């Protein structure tokens, strides 16, 4: 029943509160577009004003007395958008002539009054404390009302150091702690990554000029850090200079260990597990992209079954690979590659 006035922010498609908004997100709800300047006496825009120039406020929607719970309960003290409306309402309040018939939104101006008049005590005891939201000023760092604040002040989060833990909502507390911890960890890793230099360009990878360059290129077989651009440049440099592809180009520039692929990553890892996580999520991402060589079955992919990209037909059916097992000379079974006539012709000796 409190959702009466159309949310101005929603009307512009920019309300961040979603369903928790204290104003109506229903287009049928009447918008509150009465000119506050006109109500106070003078509006500089006169007839050109885009707000309504009417003296009488919406009597039809006048609230009954129990509506008084709306402003305090809903008004979470959240900074931005409710305060603006408070001011509006206060202005209207001063202008309206008949106090008992004042519309619901006007009562918002009086949450301090409610306390003064002694409604407060009874009111707070009626409402489940878990339903009240915490003071966002305190959560953001400092509440100007201090002890006298009518809203609950959250408990101190030991990780982020803000008063943002709701004392009566255990689930929310836990959730916050979890995300906080995650963020903390991420920051730690990022700080660590910040220091790392690429041994090819000799620059700090995360301090490179463009965002595209600020990425690590992780080698699968060793733990030496490079920027993804440098390592890719090196691996794709033409073998014209007499460099051997397998022994020089595909090896790590530092330890020369052979790695068959490079994983781009925005952070560096500190443990084997983290590295594996990065590799796994990279592979998972590629698996969701259709392979352009395979081209829904129209082409052939040179990487075959070891391709990181998705091999599926247009109807979503995955590629079926029938591996051909052959008996090798030593009695073991080997998996045969696709056979080509040229394989036989190459060995053919013409006498």
């Amino acid at each position, binding site marked *: 029943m409190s959702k009466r006035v159309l949310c101005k922010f929603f009307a512009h498609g920019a309300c961040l509160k979603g369903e928790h908004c204290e104003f109506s997100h229903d287009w049928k709800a009447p918008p509150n577009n009465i000119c506050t300047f006109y109500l106070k006496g003078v509006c500089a825009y006169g007839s050109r004003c885009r707000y309504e120039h009417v003296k009488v406020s919406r009597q039809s929607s006048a609230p009954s007395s129990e509506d008084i719970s709306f402003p305090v309960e809903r008004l979470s003290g959240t900074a931005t958008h409710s305060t603006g409306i408070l001011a509006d309402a206060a202005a209207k309040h001063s202008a309206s002539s008949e106090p008992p018939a004042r519309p619901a939104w006007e009562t918002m101006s009086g949450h301090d009054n409610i306390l003064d008049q002694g409604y407060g005590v009874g009111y707070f005891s009626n409402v489940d404390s878990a339903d009240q939201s915490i003071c966002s000023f305190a959560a953001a760092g400092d509440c100007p009302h201090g002890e006298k604040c009518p809203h609950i002040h959250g408990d101190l989060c030991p990780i982020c150091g803000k008063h943002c833990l709701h004392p009566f909502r255990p689930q929310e507390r836990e959730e916050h702690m979890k995300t906080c911890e995650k963020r903390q960890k991420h920051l730690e890793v990022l700080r660590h990554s910040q220091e790392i230099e690429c*041994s*090819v*360009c*000799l*620059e700090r990878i995360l301090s490179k000029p463009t965002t595209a360059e600020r990425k690590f290129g992780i080698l699968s077989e060793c733990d*030496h850090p490079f920027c993804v651009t*440098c390592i890719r*440049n*090196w691996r794709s*440099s033409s073998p014209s*200079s*007499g*460099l*051997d592809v397998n*022994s*020089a180009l595909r*090896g790590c*520039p*530092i330890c*020369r260990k052979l790695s068959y692929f490079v994983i781009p990553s925005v952070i560096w890892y500190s443990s084997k597990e983290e590295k594996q996580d990065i590799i796994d999520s990279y592979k998972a991402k590629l698996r969701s992209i259709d392979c352009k060589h395979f081209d829904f079955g129209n082409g052939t992919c040179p990487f075959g079954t070891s391709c990181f990209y998705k091999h599926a037909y247009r109807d979503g059916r995955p590629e079926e690979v029938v591996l051909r097992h052959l008996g090798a000379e030593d009695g073991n079974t080997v998996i045969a590659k696709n056979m080509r006539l040229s394989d036989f012709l190459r060995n053919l000796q013409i006498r």
Partner: protein
Amino acid sequence: MVDFARVQKELQECNRDFEVSGIRVVPNGEANLAHLLGTIPGPLGTPYEGGTFKIDITLPDGYPFEPPKMRFATKVWHPNISSQSGAICLDILKDQWSPALTLKTALLSVQALLSAPEPDDPQDAVVAQQYLRDYQTFVGTARYWTEAFAMISSLGVEEKVQKLVEMGFPEALVRSTLESVGGDENLALEKLCST
């Protein structure tokens, strides 16, 4: 395009610990950093001891993804260095190059090559033959070449210093200037006058 930002960094890094390594890399005359001059001291306990060897460095367009081209500007008697052209036979300057190597590490490798010749994989067949057949003569020739070509600037250095000091320049400045121009008295004088 040569990554000049990296070259600049390498030069700073290399010249910072000149005291320890004795290796120096400076731009070769022009403002262009693609042409450099490196100097390495002859390793102790070898016929090259006491010499200062100049190495002409040209950076190819693909540097650091292609190896720098290095050539001895000072004549050296060594199985893996051409006694005629100064060409160096060293794997890391060819197919074993890696972009993680720098000019300094490459020069260190060249210095190591001086102390550990590989006569089985020679650049200069004559020197390699001599090394294998008559090691004593090889050492003698190498020593002679070092004294004749790699110490030339240091031989008359005291005289030059004396001369310039008499002209009224402070001795420390004279020494550093002489060193920076490679022992050329006239160049040093020109530089001293211009500063």
